[in-house]
């Protein structure tokens, strides 16, 4: 069965090629069938692999395909690694991927780029699978850049719109900033360990050749983390993700919420041995994570675009995952990746359903009362919201609790900031929910007539995801609640090496206390949102209305985009123009042309010797001969 793992990425690739090459000639039905079918087949195989892996004792298998790059001592095979971590990600990617493909058949049905869209989606799945399946860092990098490309293509899917194209370009370039860090990290790994394979690097580290905190390990991990910052939209490279909402909503769900943006977490979890040996980097990861969680959550408080709110919430949740990684709770991070994939995909798809019903409008100030028209969407959205805020029993509760417990153990301040971010999450998510689904409809009459529940192809994925959001947490019920943490057991072989160094020993009472605190803060925040937006029916400020400075600042997203524009984009253009006009044309070319000019000038002077007077020539000749003879005599 494990040999079949090659088929997992191969099938979407074939799907991509077929749709990409013959898409124009195929009917929409065939395109959907090939698009969804290939991903579903991958899902089936992934599931079989997952189940088989549970049963096996040996958990890690490498499948060599061919030798990719080799030069001298450097040799990089194109090979796959099947182990608990990658098989779990396979399941998430193909599972959610399939649901979103299915959803897209309904959501995109009227779009002229239908087949292109499915081709891109399949290509994305292919690269994402390569990312998690690779057995060395360079193969991960292949997938890493590949998903970046697909993200670029899909954000700019409606390519006639310049703003969307700009957003796509921004995403690609910001990702590339991270990618450079990642690439340098890979090279440093090669230079240090002589290999870029996970297994080889792991062996090196376990053998104890390096002590914890060695500068070179810190450098490697920091460089890798730069890559993760770019891909997973952390401070300071997060600004592309909210803009990436320009793409079709299924794309936002699949790429910019459930899968691609979690690549950074996967990468660090995969490199857990390296990171565990670099305490400084771990602190950096935790701090960046918690800051992002808090920072993005505050921005989310004041946004009015349904997708932008979800985007900032994604950034914030990714921050939680990095916090988990930074305090060494690798399982918690992966757990949260999984539950987040469920509920965030659900929320985005729900938002898509709302947008679909609203004929494309995304401003929640113009919504309200949609409960009546979109009952299924409303219910599933509510379940998703409860899951993300960590309502006890829902999936988000278990994963977030695990993260916060680990943070508490590591540093109380991290825990406190995490709780604060969680409280804000609750507030803005319920603000979103109340404004969208309760109260009276505030849109135009034209929109009102058009309101309708989405077709089956869209609601079925919602229902499945809602079920997963509710029950998905049960695979990781902590011991303290009388559960058996299945996920931790399953992932143990991957994180074993690190857990020797990082231990978790909170007393049961402390854990109960933490849970109670989390739940209490969540409830208080929920109640606050309820009072404002449900009971008092307060509406967000309209455009141009005067806001207090703080509100204004977070409404304007702390002006970070403007800041980057002034600090980086404009100076870069200035430098470019300056280099071209002054350095290039005046200085470098000036010197070259100057040499030519000097030769020309000198020749105009020297040629004056050619007077044309024969007498002068002869005189010079005679004098010269005499001089030569004279010097010869000496």
């Amino acid at each position, binding site marked *: 069965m494990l040999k079949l793992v090659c088929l997992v990425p191969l099938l979407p690739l074939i799907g991509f090629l077929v749709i990409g090459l013959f898409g124009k000639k195929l009917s929409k039905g065939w395109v959907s069938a090939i698009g969804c079918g290939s991903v579903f087949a991958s899902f089936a195989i992934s599931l079989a692999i997952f189940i088989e892996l549970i049963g096996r004792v040996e958990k890690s298998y490498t499948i060599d395909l061919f030798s990719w790059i080799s030069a001298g001592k450097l040799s990089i095979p194109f090979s796959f690694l099947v182990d608990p971590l990658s098989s779990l990600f396979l399941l998430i990617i193909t599972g959610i991927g399939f649901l979103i493909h299915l959803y897209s058949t309904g959501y995109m049905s009227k779009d002229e780029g239908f087949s292109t869209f499915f081709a891109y989606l399949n290509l994305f799945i292919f690269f994402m699978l390569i990312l998690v399946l690779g057995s060395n860092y360079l193969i991960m990098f292949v997938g890493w850049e590949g998903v970046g490309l697909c993200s670029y293509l899909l954000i700019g899917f409606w390519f006639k719109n310049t703003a969307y194209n700009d957003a796509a370009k921004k995403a690609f370039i910001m990702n590339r900033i991270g990618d450079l860090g990642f690439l340098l990290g890979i090279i440093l790994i090669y230079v240090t360990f002589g290999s870029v394979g996970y297994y080889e690097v792991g062996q090196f580290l376990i053998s104890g050749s390096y002590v914890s905190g060695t500068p070179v390990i810190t450098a490697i991990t920091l460089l890798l983390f730069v890559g993760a910052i770019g891909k997973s939209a952390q401070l300071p490279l997060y600004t592309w993700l909210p803009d990436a909402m320009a793409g079709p909503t299924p794309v936002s769900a699949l790429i910019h919420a459930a899968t691609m943006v979690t690549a950074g977490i996967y990468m660090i979890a995969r490199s857990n041995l390296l990171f565990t040996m670099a305490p400084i980097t771990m602190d950096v990861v935790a701090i960046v994570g918690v800051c992002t969680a808090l920072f993005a959550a505050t921005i989310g408080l004041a946004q009015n675009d349904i997708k932008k709110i979800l985007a900032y919430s994604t950034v914030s949740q990714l921050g939680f995952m990095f916090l988990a990684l930074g305090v060494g709770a690798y399982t918690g991070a992966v757990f949260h990746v999984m539950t987040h994939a469920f509920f965030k995909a659900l929320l985005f798809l729900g938002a898509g359903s709302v947008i679909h019903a609203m004929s494309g409008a995304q401003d929640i100030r113009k919504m309200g009362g949609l409960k009546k028209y979109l009952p299924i969407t409303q219910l599933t959205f509510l379940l998703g919201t409860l899951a993300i805020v960590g309502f006890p029993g829902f999936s988000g509760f278990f994963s977030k609790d695990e993260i916060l417990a680990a943070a508490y153990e590591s540093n109380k301040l991290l825990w406190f900031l995490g709780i604060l971010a969680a409280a804000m999450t609750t507030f803005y998510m319920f603000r979103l929910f109340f404004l969208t689904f309760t109260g009276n409809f505030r849109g135009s009459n034209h929109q009102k007539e058009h309101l309708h529940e989405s077709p089956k192809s869209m609601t079925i994925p919602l229902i499945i995801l809602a079920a997963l959001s509710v029950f998905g947490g049960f695979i990781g019920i902590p011991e303290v609640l009388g559960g058996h943490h299945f996920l931790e057991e399953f992932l143990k072989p991957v994180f074993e090496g690190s857990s020797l160094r990082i231990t978790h020993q909170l007393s049961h009472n402390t854990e109960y206390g933490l849970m109670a605190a989390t739940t209490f803060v969540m409830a208080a925040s929920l109640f606050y949102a309820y009072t404002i937006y449900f009971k008092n029916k307060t509406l967000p400020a309209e455009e141009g209305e005067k806001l207090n400075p703080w509100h204004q600042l977070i409404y304007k997203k702390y002006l970070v985009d403007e800041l980057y524009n002034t600090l980086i984009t404009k100076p870069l253009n200035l430098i470019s123009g300056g280099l071209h006009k002054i350095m290039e044309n005046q200085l470098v070319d000036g010197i070259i042309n100057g040499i030519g000019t000097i030769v020309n000038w000198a020749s105009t002077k020297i*040629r*004056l010797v*050619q*007077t*044309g*007077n*024969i*007498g002068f020539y*002869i005189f010079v000749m*005679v004098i010269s001969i005499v001089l030569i003879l004279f010097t010869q005599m000496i």
Partner: protein
Amino acid sequence: MSAIQVIPLNWYLLLSTVLFTIGVLGVLFRRNAIIIFMSIELMLNAVNLLFVAFSSYLSDSKGQVFVFFIMAVAAAEVAVGLAILMMVYRNTKTTDINILNKLKW
């Protein structure tokens, strides 16, 4: 002892030097192209004289061979040079080298 060797070599050297100097000065100071031409011939002949004298004193015939060479070349040169001068004169009505300075810069 041949007739040439009756006169000491120094005298030949002196005569040759004087002739050559006259030729050089003629070339330098005269402006008429034909006279310059004649001065050049004078220099050539000064050299010829020297060649012959040394050839005789050293009993080596190579010098005389050279003299014939120089005479042949000088003849050819005169033929071509005078022809050029003729053409110059026909076109400009002058043989003054100070006026013939078109070929400059």
